[in-house]
Each structure stands twice: as structure tokens, then as C-alpha cells.
């Protein structure tokens, strides 16, 4: 988007348009009011001194009988002009101070930065008052006083923006090419920070308008016989009992004009870019879901998902026809599986296949606007869909443990690790503070954290990534978990630490007969830990098979493609890495047929029309493919496009 288009975009938002109109009116008034009503504003009428508001004098008259309403209109010019002058002074000085560090080089630059930082700590009004002492009361003194008072904040903004641009590659390239500092500043840095600076200057103009009104109100700004809004306000306040309008009308004028500048700035800030936007859209909690407003019909060809008959009796977790939707988009479209006690099952698939959402849905951690639907969702014989929410916390809090992908961000940074573990025991086991903490230390020891007692008193940032992930598992062990759901638990860790964490998971599982549901995109990890693997594609399970049969018994072409894309020691390094051609299916645009058909070497017209059901193959596995019996020569053309992982 070009810069001009973005600024035009400001006008299209309701707030931006209203503010722009308001600002236009204020500026127009500043130009025209003295020409049109200058005479009436100065007309002395000793017969009507200090009259209250009336039809003749809308805001009453002052102590010389002059009409206050017209005086307010005429004062627009003085108020706006002085505010803009002060802003110009402030912006000029601020720009100079802000870019000085770049021009002077690091050593002198640091001094300037430090000075600005100290000045910023003092409130603008205090600076303005001090400068007003030096420059003297009056409009000519107040302009530089307010200008200098807003300069430090502007300087700091310039500095931070300039520093961020100056650190980028193209500036470094210019430097290396021998471009001088001044030229780098003028040609490379300033053009790149001009927009946010302009936005802030607009808001600063609103600020200095208000500040000027303040100084004039105090009697330090515009002096009689001149007048601006602040002065009129100060005069009006004295007679507020007799004629409130004399104080309120100039007050309203100041607020409206200040708002006009500020809102135009705010709207522009939103349009100009994320740099000044609020800190709302950080990382989404569920990165697998990409809700887009494309309306799509939910697939009407209801796929009969046949639950596994085996092991129903001692099933720990039963999931049937689970759907997760975000508005019109349904990233998980009818997933069904069961998990026996002590069983370890892996879910694999590309990013966006819905595997993480499936895990979060099972754990009841999908937040609005996400919605869960399922025919059956049972944990330990309790129906999670129908259990009253009040009865759920204990069940889920003690028998289900979660381990998330990024151990760096899954701990509360400002609470000690021990407390974060102990909390579970206090909440669900009725422990008091002391015993809860003792259990936390014990659990940390159980996950092989050295010096557990000392470590429990530390904060998460004092732990390494691997230790945090182990502590996370320890947190799950605070209750008596029957199921651990681990969502990419080793993706953020390096290989050696990865092995330790996986070994720990395996130990925990063996020791207490805990079931593990391991989400991963790494087939190697799944093979190492799990008994069974569920392969997900586009929100469905496409194959379910024992890990032992993964290498040579996979029947779904997608599973085989995934396996083919994993390099091993025998991989010919002269050949490009094998990828799965095509793009992952878009959950916002489902196709009527098999979702993998567009990328499948075996796909025919039937595949594109009808979605295959997940059918048991009689040997403990399930597969959803019309061509499951067909075994082509494994010759996946080494495509270079696409984004397989």
C-alpha cells in the first residue's frame, strides 16, 4: 500500500473522517473568524456588562460588555497559531536532539541520549513553567517555553525510531559503502521514520494547544488586550456562578480543537502501521487456526467415523466426531480415536492439519470464538461435554497434564517456579501452602531437576529451556495424571535436550501407567515414544496405525509422503530434499472430495468427488483412502516447490 493510499484510508474510518472534518473546521475558523467577526468581538457595550447568556449574547458578555461567544470564535486564530508555532519549535528541537546521536557517533551520542532521558523524566508542565520564567510571561515567551517542553519527548521518539532504522541492513550497507553520516540520516533514516514522526507531531500539536490554554489560563501565556481560549477561560472562571457559559464555551472550544488534532493523529497512527498500533495482536494462542471470513458450507457428506471396537472397556479417552470451528471455518472436521490406559499415541501432520487444536479441544482449552462439537468426548468415563463445568476442574486439573511447545513462554515470568507447581496442589488437592511447596520440590526432583529445593525458589528465566520443559512435566505430575497431552514438547529444544525430555516422558509413562498423547510434526520423535500414530490431514485423521508398521505398512499416500520427506543417513545429499508437492489444504476452503487429492499421485476423479471414510483395515489400523490397497512404486518426484517440512 502506498503512503498516500494509507493516509486516504484514515479518512475512510468513521473516527478518522469525523476528526478530519473537525480539524478542517477548526483551521477554517482560524482563518475566517477574525475577518468575519473581529469587529463584533471587540465591540464594547457598557450597557451590558457581565450579562449572562441570552438570545442576543449566546455566551454572555465580559466586563466590558463584549460578546464572549464571538470572542471565542475569533480567539481560534490566536490559539491555533500559537499552538502550531510551539509545536514547530518543539518538533525542530526534538528532531535535532533525536538525530544528534546518529550524527555525533556513539560516544557523544550516548551523552545526548542520557540528557534527553533525564529531561523526559520531568513533566512537560514543569519544564514549560521553568522556561516561562526565563522567557518571561506573554505569548512570545510561552511559545518557546512550550516548544522546549515538548521537545524531549519528541527527541526520544525520534531517537528510538532512528535507532531501529539505523540498525537495519540497508543502512549498514550504505555506511559500508562510505556514505557520510549526514547523508545516511537524510537519505536513509529520516524518510523511513517520517510517517510515525508526522503522526506524533499532529498529536503534539493537540497537546500544545491544550498546554497553551493552560499557560494562558494561569496568566503566563497570552496577555491582555490579546486573548486566546485559555485567557477567556480564566476570565470566565471568576464569574462562573453568574455566567457559567463564559467559562464553559471556551473550555468546549479547547477540548474540541484538542480532540481534532489528537484523533486525526490516532487515526493516522492506526493507518500508518503496526509500529504505533496497540499491543493487541501478539501471537495467537492457537496457531493452527486461521479464522478467515470466507463463508463455506460445512461438508454435508457426513463421514461415518467408525469408533474402534477394541479396548472400549478400559478406554481412558474416547473421542468421536470431534469438530472445532472458528466462525465459518472448521479446522478440525470430525476426528475420532480412543486411547487406552498407559497407551502412547502420536498425532502427526503438517502445520495447520488441526493436530494442536485436537489436543486443545480434548483438554477443553479452546477459547471463544472457537467452538467444540463432538458426538462423544469422555475422559476416565466422565463425559466432558455434559459434565457441569464446576465439577470439571478437579478431574481435568489432576488427571490430565499438559506440556506445551515453547517452554520459554509457558511459565508465568513473574512467579517462582515452585509456586507455579504448588498452586495445583493447593487448588485441587486441598494442600496448604507449605505441603504444596514440599510436593512441588518433590516433583521437580522426580523430573530430575538438580538442586530442586533451590530451583523451586527461582524464576523461570533462571531455568534453561530443557529444564523448563521438565519442570512443565513436573507440574503435570503434581496431581495424579492418567493422561499427558504433550503439544510439540521438543520442537523448541535442541537435539540432546530433546532426547532427555522424551526419555523423561517415557519414564513417567512406564512408572505410573500414564497415557501420552504426543502431538508432533516429527515422525522420528513419534516413533521413539509412541505405540500408535494418528496421521492428520486437513482436520481429519487419514490413517491410524501401530508405530511398528509405520515404516513399511503405511497405506495412505500422505503418510508415505511424510515418511519419504524425512531425510536419513542414506539420503543422497546430491539430490534436493524431497518435499510433498503442492500446498497444505486451506481449512477455509474445503473441497468436497478427499482433501489430499490435489497433492496425491494416486488421485482420480472419484477422489475429487467423494471423501473417503476412515475404515478399519482388520489388522488394528484405520485408513481413509480410496486407493489404500494400491501400492505404487515409491517414486515421489523431488519437487522443489511447496512447503513440506
Amino acid at each position, binding site marked *: 500500500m502506498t503512503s498516500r493510499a494509507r493516509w486516504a484510508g484514515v479518512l475512510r474510518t468513521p473516527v478518522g473522517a469525523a476528526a478530519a472534518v473537525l480539524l478542517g473546521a477548526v483551521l477554517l475558523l482560524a482563518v475566517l473568524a477574525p475577518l468575519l467577526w473581529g469587529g463584533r468581538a471587540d465591540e464594547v457595550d457598557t450597557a451590558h456588562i457581565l450579562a449572562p447568556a441570552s438570545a442576543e449574547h449566546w455566551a454572555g458578555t465580559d466586563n466590558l460588555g463584549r460578546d464572549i461567544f464571538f470572542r471565542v470564535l475569533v480567539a481560534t486564530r490566536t490559539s491555533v497559531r500559537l499552538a502550531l508555532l510551539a509545536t514547530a519549535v518543539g518538533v525542530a528541537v526534538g528532531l535535532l536532539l533525536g538525530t544528534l546521536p546518529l550524527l555525533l557517533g556513539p560516544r557523544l551520542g550516548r551523552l545526548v541520549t542520557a540528557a534527553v532521558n533525564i529531561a523526559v*523524566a*520531568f*513533566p*512537560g*508542565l514543569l519544564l514549560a*513553567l*521553568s522556561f516561562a*520564567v*526565563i522567557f518571561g*510571561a506573554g505569548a512570545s515567551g510561552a511559545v518557546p517555553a512550550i516548544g522546549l517542553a*515538548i521537545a524531549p*519527548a519528541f527527541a526520544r*521518539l525520534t531517537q528510538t525510531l532512528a535507532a*531501529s532504522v539505523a540498525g537495519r541492513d540497508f543502512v549498514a550497507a550504505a555506511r559500508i559503502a562510505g556514505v557520510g553520516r549526514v547523508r545516511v540520516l537524510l537519505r536513509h533514516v529520516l524518510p523511513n521514520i517520517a510517517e510515525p514522526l508526522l503522526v*506524533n507531531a499532529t498529536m503534539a500539536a493537540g*497537546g500544545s*494547544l*491544550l*498546554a497553551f*490554554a493552560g499557560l494562558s*489560563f*494561569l496568566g*503566563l501565556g497570552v496577555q491582555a488586550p490579546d486573548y486566546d481560549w485559555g485567557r477567556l477561560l480564566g476570565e470566565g472562571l471568576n464569574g462562573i*456562578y453568574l455566567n*457559567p457559559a463564559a467559562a*464553559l464555551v471556551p473550555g468546549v472550544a*479547547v*477540548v474540541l480543537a*484538542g*480532540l481534532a488534532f*489528537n*484523533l486525526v493523529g490516532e487515526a493516522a497512527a492506526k493507518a500508518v502501521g503496526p509500529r*504505533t498500533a496497540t*499491543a*493487541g495482536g*501478539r*501471537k*495467537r*494462542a492457537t496457531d493452527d487456526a486461521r479464522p478467515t471470513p470466507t463463508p463455506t458450507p460445512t461438508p454435508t457428506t457426513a463421514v461415518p467415523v467408525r469408533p474402534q471396537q477394541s479396548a472400549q472397556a478400559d478406554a481412558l479417552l474416547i473421542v468421536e466426531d470431534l469438530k472445532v470451528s472458528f466462525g465459518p471455518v472448521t479446522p478440525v472436521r470430525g476426528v475420532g480415536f480412543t486411547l487406552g490406559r498407559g497407551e502412547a499415541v502420536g498425532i502427526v501432520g503438517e502445520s495447520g492439519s488441526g493436530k494442536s487444536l485436537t489436543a486443545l479441544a480434548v483438554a477443553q*482449552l479452546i*477459547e471463544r470464538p472457537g467452538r467444540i462439537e463432538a458426538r462423544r468426548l469422555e475422559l476416565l468415563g466422565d463425559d466432558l461435554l455434559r459434565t457441569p463445568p464446576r465439577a470439571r*476442574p478437579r478431574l481435568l486439573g489432576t488427571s490430565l497434564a*499438559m506440556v*506445551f511447545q515453547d517452554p520459554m*513462554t*509457558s*511459565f*508465568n*515470568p*513473574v*512467579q517462582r517456579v515452585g509456586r507455579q507447581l504448588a*498452586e495445583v496442589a493447593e*487448588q*485441587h488437592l486441598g494442600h496448604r501452602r507449605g505441603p504444596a511447596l514440599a510436593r512441588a520440590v518433590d516433583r521437580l526432583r522426580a523430573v530430575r531437576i*538438580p538442586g530442586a529445593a533451590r530451583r523451586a525458589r527461582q524464576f523461570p528465566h*533462571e*531455568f*534453561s*529451556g530443557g*529444564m523448563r520443559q521438565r519442570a512443565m512435566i513436573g507440574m503435570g505430575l503434581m496431581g495424579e495424571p492418567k493422561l499427558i497431552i504433550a503439544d510439540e514438547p521438543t520442537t523448541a529444544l535442541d537435539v540432546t535436550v530433546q532426547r532427555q525430555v522424551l526419555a523423561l516422558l517415557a519414564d513417567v509413562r512406564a512408572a505410573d501407567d500414564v497415557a501420552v498423547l504426543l502431538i508432533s510434526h516429527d515422525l522420528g520423535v513419534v516413533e521413539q515414544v509412541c505405540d500408535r500414530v494418528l496421521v492428520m490431514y486437513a482436520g481429519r485423521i487419514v490413517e491410524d496405525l501401530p508405530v511398528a508398521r509405520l515404516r513399511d505398512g503405511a497405506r495412505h499416500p500422505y503418510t508415505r509422503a511424510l515418511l519419504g520427506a524425512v531425510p536419513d543417513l542414506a539420503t543422497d545429499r546430491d539430490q534436493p530434499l524431497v518435499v510433498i508437492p503442492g500446498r497444505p489444504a486451506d481449512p477455509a476452503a474445503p473441497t468436497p472430495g478427499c482433501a489430499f487429492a490435489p497433492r496425491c499421485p494416486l488421485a482420480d476423479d472419484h477422489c475429487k468427488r467423494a471423501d473417503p471414510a476412515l475404515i478399519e483395515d482388520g489388522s488394528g489400523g484405520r485408513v481413509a483412502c480410496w486407493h489404500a490397497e494400491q501400492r505404487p512404486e515409491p517414486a515421489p518426484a523431488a519437487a522443489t516447490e511447496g512447503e513440506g517440512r
Partner: protein
Amino acid sequence: MAPPFSPAVVRADRVDRVALCGRTKTGRAAGGQDLITEPDDVTEAMPVTSTTASAPGFAHLLGNPWLRFAARRLGRLLVSVWVLVTGAFLMIHLIPGDPVRAALGNTAPVELVEARREALGLNDPLWQQYADYLRHLVGGDFGTSMLSGLPVSEVIGDRLPATAELAVLAFALAVLASIPLGLAMAVLTRGGRRKPVELAFTSGSVLLAVVPEFLVAVGLVYVFSVELGWAPVAMRQGPSSYVLPVLALAVGPASILARIVRVETLAVLQAEYIRTARAKRLPDRRVYLRHALPNALTATITVGGLLLGGMVAGTVLAENVFAWPGLGSTIVGSILAKDYPVVQGVVLVYGLGVLLVNLVVDVALALLDPRSTIRES
């Protein structure tokens, strides 16, 4: 005066916070001595401890992040105080022309002006005046009013309590009102819930944040004193006279803070550790108060801390609306009357107040977020 100056300040600070993080990383990497090392295991941590241990005791002292924080913060405070004092000293010397002549008027006899110059030490060389000024300050001597002849310290002693009361009450009100409000708004409007509430809150708080305190004050006087007659229009007489000035001073900063609290809480609620807290099946109350709030507060203080310092100066305007017998009306009167020693003393007191508030904010931040003690440097 928070509102007129604040938007740029708040924004600058927000950008700064991002920049700060970047600086931290490089700073740490370059600094070498890294105490938030993330020892992968005890074995890996060993080399780090051994290198620090090989340095003598001083390095060990510096090793304590809290001591380092205290030393750094104290250093900054001292530099700021020095800048403030020097600024106040120079203020008089930067005034064009003869300040004594300006104060006494053109008709004052030459002898009187000369005598006053002599008494104020204005005829001494600048360095000596500076040395005298510093020496007197240390002894608690702020000089003498040119008009009343009273010691400035006495004037300040008379007026300071009224201002301090106002500032502390407004400070407390702003903080105590904005945190629950911002948190509640974030919880109510998270994930796009209750759009109308969100719109009402954001537009209302923008409006209140833009209106400067003296205009809020005028509005309050109109509604509550003139129309309703509930509160006295001015002066400090009894508890009811505090209501309007405190309200006028606190409304603007409170609404900006509430906005920041809301935005920061919304951001925190997206964080993965909140999902962890939910996975622990903690009650909502605990998730919000124990896990979300402390993190949102640290961010809020980082962004909005300067606002609270601004309130110290905001008293000047509020006092002038309500004829409050504090330093704010004194400084304006003294500037107009060109009673420079008084102005100098009051500016110093205000400046110290601001520095004090900033110090409190920094310490609160350090206590709330232990990482911030190690950060920066």
C-alpha cells in the same frame, strides 16, 4: 499536566520498551558477565560461575542483581538531582537583562537594586555563586523571597503540605481506580466479546484523557458546585473541599492508565502462560488476579509510569482553579511577580517530587518483575 503532553510520551515509551529489549540482548552479549545465564544444567553452568568467582570480591558484589540495580538507580537519581539543581541555578542566570531590576521595576532606585544584587550574591563570579548555591542548598537554605523577605524554605514549608495532600490522594485514586477498571474491561471484552462495552470504554477514556485537568476541574465546578451545590467551589476547608480537586487531577491519568491496563491485560491473556494456568484448571479469578494482573501491571508501569510523575506538576493547574493554598498557586504568582528565588525553590521541590515518584515507580517495577532488575544495564 498529564493529558496535554502525554500522548507523545506514552508512545515514545512504548516504542522505547521494544528498543530496550533489543538493546538488552546485545548489551548482555557484549557485557560478557552474564548472570541470567541459562545454565542448561549444573554442569554447563559451572564455567560461568568459575569465571565470576575468579574475579575478586567486588565483582561478586556486582554479581547480585539487586545490588547492581540499587547502584545503577541511585546513580541515575544523583545525576538527575544534580541536573535539576543546576537547571534551577541557571534558570535565573539565563533570564535576559537584570532579574533584580525586572523584579523591582523600572522605578526602583539604583542603590536599592545594587544592594539587592549584592545581597543575592549576583555580583560574584558565576562559579562562586554556583558553589554558594550548592552549599546553601545542602544546609537547607533556599534563599529569600525578593518581595516578602521571608526565607523561601518557610514559604515552601507553609505551602507544601496542601500540595502533597492533593498529589498523594490523586495519585492513589488514579492507581486504585484504573487497575480494577482496566482489568475488568479487559476480561469483559477479551476475544471480541461485548463490542458495545468496548466502544463505550475506549471512546470515553480517550475523551477524558484528552481533556486537561484544568478543564475537567472547570467542568466539575460547574456541575457539582454551581448546578448541584454539593461541593465548595474553591479553597481548602474540610474534607468535602478535597473531592473536586482530587477528582480533577486524577480523572485524566486514571483513564489513560485504565486504557493501558486493558490493552496490556488483553495482550497478557493471549500469552502461553495464561493457557498453562488454564490447563491447571485454576478458577478464573485466580487466573486473572495471580497470573494476568502482575504481568499486565509491569507492562502498564513501564508504559504509564511517567504519567504519575506528571501528576505532581498537574497540581499547579488544579490548584489554580480551586484557589488551593499550595505550591502551585505560589509558583504562578511568583513567576508573574518575578520573585525568582521563590520560583527557583518551588521548581526544585516539584522536580524532587517528580524524581521521587519515578524512583517509587522503578522500585515497584523491580519488585513486580524480577527480570527488570537485571534488564537495562
